[in-house]
């Protein structure tokens, strides 16, 4: 390894965890956190890494390892933190043994997510766990290392909450010394902590144990605050005037940037911990009449400052995302500048004034050229249209089938929701066929309980599983059905077919590049009783394009302009980006076409051959 490297924030956090002596790393892929685990798996085969089936499982596996007194890390995106919440609320009460760091990566602005949320609320406001919120890749690395030590110091899990602009920022990072403890795994029983149950606790004079653990968690807050007070991640920068800026995590960098570009020096409070350092905060509030809080995403620190002002009777105006700054979306330097302008603290220079850019056509993502999901979605569109069916969707590359031009799936929610929602629609008495569309990784993540429930409760639905052998959307992570794990060991594939059979559903297997075969299976499935599963298997094209592992025979097709009547079925119901429409005819862009030949099968006039 080089000593200084230009790497992503995720890689920097991985480096921090390695230097801290992490022994077990678990997670489930999700932008922007995915690379942390991948980098550790790649760089350090001696560290145990796993893609768990879902984030709940990941946090539980990590807890098991923590009980053996080794340093553990669980990695996920904010939606994953939601999934893992039940376990998190439990280990908040029990505390941990070996250091336990949980990375909960947020995506302000939802650049790569189905929703945006601030997991500081879930983890700190609700779960009472301590959080570190990095402002840069370099600080994220230092926080990762610190989190391992602090977790052991306090016997509680520590959370690292990086945002997209930290995870996916690239900068020069330096290697540091190892802070790994020298100890072997060991296990000691401590049932008063690690058995969470409604039972009278002798150690607490017979008080109910959950109540006693809750008291201990509340008492811990003072310890976390002491740590925050001494933390190198919180500081005050002196400045002039009575308006102060509070920069939390990445918010600090936008505040700094704005002040530098205006040549202004205002007092700044840089914050990187939750709970807040109470003395430092008070010291800062005593210097100013007004503060603006820049934080991602919700007004969490802002409300805490308001509370402090109220409790301590401080006459300081606290502005932030509650009423003053945009309440949704990602911060940037422009937002800081406009806030200063609005308060007449500074005037914007001409080149920093907002610029009205001309409207350009909207661009939305779609499946890749050659993707097997596209022909599958096309077959589903045809059959469901004929039967007036409804399709519930799930997350994954196929979810773009819910956008124009295909507009097949009527719903997209959280992972695994397609199957239970289909069951609900079917049970409503609506009387229309209902089809759920789900990817293979998502099937193992949270699809399975929904399928079991649907089968047990005799729902009348069809479930289509787009089995491309990988977690494509997040960058090809292996899953239980892939036959390989993240440590690149060959493992037995868990057969989706066998699992589905065991659940008691009917199974049909198709090659999605064979549209006729797929349509036939769909026809049968939507007209039969019970849960009917169609497994559409074909490897992800983007990943396999340079291999022989393709499920279609390449064929060069052309549009016969004589026969093409410009009906646009190929564009509107299939939507391959290599198809172009000009002067009432379709043409094929040879530079991007990969010769899957599916457009020829879609054309009703035989104009593409």
């Amino acid at each position: 390894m080089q000593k200084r490297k230009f790497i992503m924030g995720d890689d920097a956090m991985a480096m921090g965890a390695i230097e801290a002596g992490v022994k077990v790393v678990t997670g489930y892929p999700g932008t922007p956190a995915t690379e942390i685990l991948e980098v550790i798996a790649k760089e350090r085969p001696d560290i145990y890494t796993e893609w768990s089936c879902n984030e709940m499982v990941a946090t539980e596996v990590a807890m098991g390892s923590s009980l053996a007194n080794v340093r553990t890390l669980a990695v996920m995106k904010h939606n994953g933190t939601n999934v893992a919440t039940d376990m998190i609320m439990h280990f908040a009460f029990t505390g941990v043994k070996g250091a336990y760091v949980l990375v909960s990566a947020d995506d302000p602005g939802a650049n790569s997510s189905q929703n945006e949320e601030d997991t500081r609320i879930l983890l700190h406001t609700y779960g009472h766990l301590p959080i570190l919120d990095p402002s840069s890749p370099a600080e994220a690395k230092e926080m990762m290392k610190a989190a391992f030590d602090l977790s052991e110091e306090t016997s509680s899990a520590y959370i690292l909450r990086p945002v997209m602009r930290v995870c996916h920022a690239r900068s020069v990072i330096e290697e540091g010394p190892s802070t790994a403890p020298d100890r072997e795994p060991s296990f000691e029983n401590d049932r008063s902590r690690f058995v969470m149950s409604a039972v009278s606790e002798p150690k607490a004079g017979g008080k109910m144990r959950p109540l006693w653990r809750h008291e201990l968690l509340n008492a811990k807050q003072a310890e976390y605050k002491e740590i925050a007070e001494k933390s190198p991640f919180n500081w005050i920068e002196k400045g002039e005037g009575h308006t102060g800026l509070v920069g939390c995590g990445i918010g600090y960098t936008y505040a700094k940037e704005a002040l530098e570009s205006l040549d202004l020096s205002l007092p700044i409070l840089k914050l990187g911990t939750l709970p807040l350092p109470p003395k430092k905060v008070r010291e800062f509030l005593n210097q100013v009449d007004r503060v603006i809080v820049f934080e991602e995403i919700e007004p969490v620190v802002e409300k805490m400052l308001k509370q402090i002002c109220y409790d301590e009777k401080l006459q300081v105006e606290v502005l932030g995302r509650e009423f003053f700054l945009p309440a949704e979306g990602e911060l940037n330097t422009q937002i800081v500048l406009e806030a200063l302008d609005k308060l007449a603290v500074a005037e914007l220079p001409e080149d920093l004034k907002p610029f009205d850019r001309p409207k350009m056509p909207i661009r939305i993502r779609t499946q890749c050229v050659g993707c097997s999901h596209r022909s599958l979605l096309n077959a589903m569109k045809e059959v469901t249209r004929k039967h007036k069916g409804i399709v519930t969707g799930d997350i994954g590359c196929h979810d773009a089938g819910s956008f124009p031009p295909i507009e097949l799936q009527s719903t997209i929610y959280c992972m695994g929701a397609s199957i239970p929602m289909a069951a609900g629609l079917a049970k409503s008495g609506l009387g229309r066929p209902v089809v759920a569309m789900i990817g293979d990784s998502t099937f193992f993540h949270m699809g399975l309980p929904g399928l079991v429930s649907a089968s047990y409760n005799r729902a009348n639905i069809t479930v289509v599983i787009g089995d491309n052998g990988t977690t494509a959307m997040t960058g090809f992570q292996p899953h239980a059905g892939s036959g390989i794990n993240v440590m690149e060991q060959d493992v037995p594939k868990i057969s989706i077919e066998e699992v589905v059979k065991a659940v008691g559903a009917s199974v049909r297997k198709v090659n999605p590049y064979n549209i006729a075969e797929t349509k036939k299976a769909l026809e049968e499935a939507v007209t039969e009783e019970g849960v009917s599963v169609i497994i559409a298997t074909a490897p992800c094209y983007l990943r396999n394009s340079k291999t022989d592992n393709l499920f279609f025979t390449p064929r060069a097709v052309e549009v016969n302009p004589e026969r093409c009547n410009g009906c646009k079925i190929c564009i509107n119901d299939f939507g391959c980006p290599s198809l172009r429409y000009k002067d009432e005819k379709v043409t094929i862009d040879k530079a991007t076409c990969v010769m899957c030949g599916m457009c020829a099968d879609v054309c009703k006039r035989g104009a593409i051959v």
Partner: protein
Amino acid sequence: MKLDIIIAGVGGQGNLLASVALANYSMKKGLEVLGTETIGSAQRGGSVVSHMRISDKKIHSPLVPNGRADILIGFEPIEAVRNIHFLNPKGKFIINNYPVPTIFCNMGMEEYPSEEEILGALKARCSQGYVIGASEKAKDMGTLMMTNVIMLGALAGIEPFFEKQELERVIAELLPKKVLEQNLMAYEEGYKMVANSEANAVSA
């Protein structure tokens, strides 16, 4: 010294290699580098914007503020216009004139703007720039995949900070051996395009 660069394109056009090349080049010069990609609606054919910040002082945020970019590199015309607000009016742009149609344009629900409209929109913000046929050239040379390297060659032609030979060496380190020679030829072509009349130099 500071140089803020925006690279705007569509998923799959090779933004990332371009920004890593510029970062490695600047690091070799001992400068600070900070960057990020905003992978709009993900990789699959959605818009992709890379922010690359180079300076001899500490850089705070990974995002280039509006109006502060010195150079806008547009791998795709409408993506360039979509990000024109980042460009400083005194900066410069270099645009690949090869449209990647959108789904809505293909469906006939929106119209892809004409070359004049695009140029007009760029010029409304910034008076200095070049429009080149990078993708056409890449296609002629064998594969669209070389668009990014041609654009980097052109960048070396318009921005003195990037010394031609040195940037070429940095790019060479990033490319697989198999495609190296062809790509370096493409780089040279890109450089020549802005020097010769093949480029549509814009100035008002």
